């Protein structure tokens, strides 16, 4: 018997779906992640909490590339994130096979959110214990989306999820403006993480990813590309802050 035929997420008398609320609590226990949409790109960043100095930090994958032009970060349960990364990557390739180009962020977000919703209603499973931040650039411009364990998704100009989301969002509200350059956005994102960071923030303690639009040398066309900043690049940003 490998399938429960009934849902484990059911309505409480007050109309709430408690398992989803508990999943959000799991997200709230996770390391903070932030995202900022700039005029010419998007930045997402997260704290890499290592429980011990013995862990090989290079083996941890907190920031994931979904396809060339889309990146993803999370707050909450790492193992659940890996499952969603694999799903997202597969979805992106399926789209590409049909349309010969990367999916627009909003299309990918819809499909991913749909999967997350299924796990709040299908038999014998629990909701995912992660909130996701997806960043990408498509024909409409830069995009930043949040997806929650319930399957709800929200487009943001700038946001934070995880342990320190309330303070971080207040911080972002003060500093965000619509004409920000990607460089400034990265700077602000790192500053935001630093606000809630316990201890000394080094270039190995955070992961930063950007999606920017790089003009191609041969064709003159520009393609959006997701890339993780190297520790050296993060160190430069940190040097400017400290």
């Amino acid at each position: 018997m490998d399938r429960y035929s009934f849902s484990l997420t059911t309505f409480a008398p007050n109309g709430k779906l408690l398992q989803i609320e508990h999943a959000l609590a799991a997200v709230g226990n996770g390391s903070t992640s932030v995202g900022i949409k700039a005029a010419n790109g998007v930045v997402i960043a997260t704290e890499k909490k290592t429980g011990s100095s013995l862990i090989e930090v290079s083996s941890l994958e907190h920031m994931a590339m979904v396809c060339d032009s889309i990146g993803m970060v999370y707050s909450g349960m790492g193992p659940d994130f890996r499952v969603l990364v694999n799903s997202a990557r597969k979805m992106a390739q399926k789209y590409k096979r049909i349309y010969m180009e990367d999916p627009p962020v909003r299309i990918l977000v819809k499909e991913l959110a749909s999967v997350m919703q299924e796990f709040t209603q299908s038999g014998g499973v629990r909701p995912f214990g992660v909130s996701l931040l997806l960043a990408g650039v498509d024909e409409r411009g830069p995009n930043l989306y949040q997806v929650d364990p319930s399957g709800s998704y929200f487009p943001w100009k700038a946001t934070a999820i995880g342990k320190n989301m309330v303070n971080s969002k207040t911080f972002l509200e003060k500093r965000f403006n619509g004409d920000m350059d990607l460089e400034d956005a990265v700077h602000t994102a790192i500053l935001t993480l630093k606000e809630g960071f316990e201890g000394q923030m080094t270039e190995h303690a955070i992961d930063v990813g950007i999606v920017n639009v790089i003009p191609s040398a041969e064709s003159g066309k520009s393609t959006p590309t997701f890339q993780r900043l190297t520790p050296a690049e993060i160190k430069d940003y940190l040097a400017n802050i400290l």
Partner: protein
Amino acid sequence: MGSRSASAGYDRQITIFSPEGRLFQVEYAFKAISNAGLTSVGVCGKDSAVIVTQKKVPDKLIDASTVTHIFQISPSIGCVMTGLEPDGRNQVMRARQEAAEFKYKHGYSITPDLLAKRMANINQVYTQKAFMRPLGVSMILIGWDEERGPQLYKTDPAGYFAGYRATAAGAKHQEAFNYLEKKLKADVQPCADDTLELAVATMSSVLSASFKAQDLEIAVVTKENPVFRMLTVEEIDAELSRIAEKD
């Protein structure tokens, strides 16, 4: 809005969330690992990786040569299983299958990091689907990667995995971690014999015991011999004597 939320009562019995966002079944699986009573240690050096575990034969009538917690998974990858033995055997069989299928499909041997990730992803499924409980074991993997050299990984019932310079699992894993963190300050990588020595020293320290060769199981992968191999009783004895003489 009410701040106290009541759990449905099943959050301790199957892997659904508790009101605080915890998975009790996963936490209980971790307890099962500690309850098994054994401790294992793994250390990854510059040119070798080592795993050490206790060998406790519970009954004199048991054939000691059949008691083992160390298993080979592929020619260059092996593991030590800490926790519930039957669950450990289940996971080893699955790991062997995954490694063999990978070789068949892709034409080259699976690397330690990919195998660890695959096993961790399987563990994650047990934390999300109610039909199977999480396994009460932690797998410490060592292997030789052609491009990266010696590798050490650990997976746990939560579906978490990471690469390590040194790690431990089992009853005294916290003490072992403390000891190893002190000995391996940032980015230090032990060389040659130091790797094995550190692993054995960690075991002696946290278990407050001096070992005889029959009390330990040791397995290594080295640069000179990038195959996973268990040390014989004689080799363990020689190693312990060498360490004792050093002091």
